[in-house]
C-alpha cells in the first residue's frame, strides 16, 4: 500500500505542493515586503507566458519528445504580430490571430518532421528554434517591436491579463485577471489529456507507440497534433507576453523553453514519456515563479533562481527514477 502511494503521480504532486508552500513560507518569514497581496498578484501576472508554453510542451514531452523552439518562437510570433500591426496596418485582432496561427504552423512543421520524417525531436526543434530566432530579426530588420500600450487604441487587450481598477479617490487596484483564463485553460487541457481520444493517444504514443500503431490508429496524425497543440500554446503565450511587456526585443526568449520544460519535469511528467499531468505542470511553473520573484526579496538575484531550480529539477528526476515508473 505504502509502495503504491509513493509510486503514484498524486504523491509527487502533493510533494511539490508542499515544497511550494515551504518556499513561499520561507520568503514570507524572511521578508515583510513579500507578505503583501500584490506579491501574489505579481507572481500570477509573471507566470502566464511560461505557464502557457509549459502546458503546450507537456504534450510533446508525454509522447517522449520535446520542443526547443518555444522560447525563440514566442518572441518571433510576437514580433511578427507587431510587424503586421505597425508596418502592414493590420487590425489588432487580426494580427493577434496571425500570431497564434504562426505558432500552430511551426508546431505542425515540428510534428511533421518528427512523426512523419522520423527526425529526432531535439534536432527538429533545434532547427526551428534557430529558424524562429532568425526570422523574427530578419522580418523586423533587427529592431524591437511594440504592441499597443497604455494610451494607444487597442491597448485594452492588456486588460484581459491585468485589470487595473481605479477607485473614486484615484487609488488603483491591480487584478490579475489572466489567472482566471489560466485556470480555465488548465481545467480544459487536463480534460483533453485525460478524457479525450486525443489525450489517450498522446499518452499511448509515449508509453507504447508500436502497440498503438498495430491497433490501427493513425499514429502520425495524432503525433503531429501533439506538436500543433504545443505550437498553439506558444502562439497564445506570444500574445500573453505582448500583454505583459509591450516592447518585444529580438534575441530575447532563448531560455524560456528550458524554464518551461524544467517546470513540466518538476511537475511529474516523465522524460521518457507515457505519463504526465497538466496540473503538475502548473505546480512546476508556480514553483519557478515563486523562486524568481521571491529571491530578490532576500537579496539574491536570478542566478540563484537558476541554481536552485536546477537542484529541484535534478531532485524531481531522481524521484521519478526511484519511483520506478517503468518497472511498476
Amino acid at each position: 500500500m505504502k509502495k503504491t502511494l509513493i509510486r503514484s503521480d498524486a504523491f509527487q504532486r502533493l510533494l511539490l505542493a508542499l515544497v511550494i508552500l515551504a518556499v513561499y513560507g520561507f520568503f514570507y518569514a524572511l521578508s515583510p515586503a513579500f507578505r503583501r497581496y500584490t506579491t501574489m498578484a505579481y507572481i500570477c501576472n509573471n507566470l502566464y507566458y511560461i505557464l502557457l508554453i509549459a502546458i503546450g510542451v507537456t504534450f510533446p514531452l508525454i509522447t517522449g519528445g520535446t520542443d526547443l523552439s518555444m522560447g525563440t518562437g514566442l518572441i518571433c510570433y510576437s514580433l511578427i504580430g507587431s510587424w503586421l500591426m505597425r508596418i502592414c496596418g493590420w487590425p489588432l485582432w487580426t494580427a493577434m490571430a496571425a500570431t497564434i496561427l504562426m505558432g500552430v504552423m511551426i508546431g505542425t512543421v515540428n510534428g511533421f518532421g518528427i512523426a512523419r520524417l522520423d527526425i529526432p525531436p531535439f534536432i527538429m526543434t533545434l532547427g526551428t528554434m534557430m529558424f524562429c530566432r532568425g526570422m523574427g530579426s530578419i522580418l523586423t530588420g533587427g529592431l524591437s517591436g511594440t504592441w499597443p500600450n497604455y494610451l494607444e487604441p487597442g491597448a485594452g487587450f492588456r486588460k484581459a491579463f491585468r485589470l487595473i481598477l481605479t477607485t473614486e479617490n484615484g487609488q488603483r487596484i491591480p487584478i490579475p485577471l489572466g489567472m482566471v483564463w489560466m485556470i480555465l485553460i488548465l481545467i480544459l487541457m487536463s480534460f483533453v489529456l485525460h478524457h479525450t481520444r486525443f489525450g489517450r493517444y498522446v499518452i499511448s504514443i509515449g508509453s507504447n507507440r508500436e502497440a498503438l500503431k498495430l491497433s490501427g490508429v493513425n499514429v502520425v496524425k495524432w503525433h503531429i497534433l501533439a506538436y500543433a497543440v504545443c505550437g498553439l500554446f506558444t502562439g497564445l503565450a506570444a500574445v500573453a507576453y505582448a500583454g505583459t511587456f509591450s516592447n518585444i526585443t529580438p534575441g530575447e526568449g532563448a531560455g524560456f523553453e528550458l524554464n518551461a520544460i524544467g517546470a513540466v519535469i518538476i511537475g511529474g511528467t516523465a522524460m521518457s514519456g507515457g505519463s504526465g499531468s497538466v496540473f503538475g505542470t502548473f505546480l512546476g511553473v508556480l514553483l519557478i515563479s515563486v523562486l524568481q520573484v521571491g529571491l530578490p526579496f532576500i537579496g539574491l538575484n536570478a542566478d540563484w533562481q537558476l541554481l536552485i531550480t536546477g537542484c529541484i529539477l535534478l531532485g524531481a528526476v531522481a524521484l521519478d527514477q526511484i519511483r520506478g515508473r517503468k518497472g511498476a
Partner: protein
Amino acid sequence: MKRAFSILLVLTVLTVCAAACAEEYYHFEIVSKGFQATYWQAVQKGAREEADRLNREAGYEMITMNYTGPDSEADITQQVQQFTSALNANPSAIGFAAVDQNAFRDLLNDAISRKIPIVGFDSGVPGAPEGAVYANASTDNYAAGAVAADGMWQKIEKRIEQADGPVRIGEVNQDATGESVTRRGLGFIDRIIALAGEKDWKVFVTGNEYYVGNANGACAEESEAKIILEVRVPAQPTVELCANEAFVLLNKEDLIAVFGSNQPAAEGIISADDNLCVCGITDATVIAVGFDSGATLKAVIQMGIMYGAVTQSPVDIGRKTIDLLLACARGEPVEDVDTGCAFYTIENIDSEEIAQNLYD
C-alpha cells in the same frame, strides 16, 4: 581640324578623370550595442539621415555604411564577432559602442596597427588602448544621472523634510559593468548625496556592491541616515528581470522615489508598477523617474504614472558620429562632442526642445 579635335578629346578625358579622382569615397562600419531599445533605433536613424544628407550634398554616394549590433547587450561574443568583421572590411573608420569594457583590447590594438580610426558613441569604448579612439559622440552620462536626481529632488525634498523617519530612494540599473549605465547610476547617487548634504541630511547607500563602493560621501551607518538609497541590479539586462528588482523596491513601505537609469530599467519599473499601482505624481505616491524615451515611457508620463525622465539626443548622437567618422577619415583633427540631455515631465513633454528628442 583633326588635331584640334584630338586635343579637345584629350582635355575632356583629363577633366573627367580629374573630376572622378577628386571624388571621395568612404565606407564606415558602425557596431552599436544593438537595436533592442528604441533609443538605439533612434541613434541608427540619426546616422542614416546624416549619411544621406552628406551624400546629397556631394551629389554622389560618398559615404556607404554597414550598421550592426548584437541581439542583446549581454551578447559580448556576438559583438566581438561583429567588430572583427568590421575590421576585416577595412573601412575608412569605425563607429563603436562597446557592450563590455575588456573584451575588445586586442581588436582595438589591431585597429591601431592597421591605422583604422575609431569613433566612440553613446558609452563609447571605455578602457580602450591609447590612440585607438579618436573621439566620442555621447551624453555626459555622469551629468545626466545628476540631471535625473535634480528633477526628482524638486518633487521629493519637502516629503523628506516632513518624514518622521528615514525615507528610501530606489535605483534600478540594468548592469554594473556598462560605462553609460554605471556613470549614470553613480551620477544620480552622488548628486542625491550632494543635495542631501546641503540640508545636512546623511545618505546611506545599500544594494549592489559596485555602486555602494563607488558612491562619494555616503554615511557608513544606516541608523544615521535620513535617506536610504537602495541600488538593485538584475542578473541579466532584460526588462523582465529589471521588473523583478523594481518590484522589490516598490513593495517597500518607506520608498518615496525610484530611478530607472535606462529604457529597460525604466520600463521594468512601469511593468512592476502595473501590479502594484503605487507610482504617481502626488505626495502619497512613489515618484518614478526614468531615462530615455519610447512609446511606453511617453504614455506613462502623460498619464501621470511616471513623474519624468531624462532624454538624451540619440538622433543627434547618430548624426555627430557620422560627422566625426568623416572628419577622421579625411585626417582632420577631432575632439569629443557632448550631445546633451534634458529632464522632461508632463509639463514640457510637448515643448519643441523636448519633443524633437523623443522617439517611440
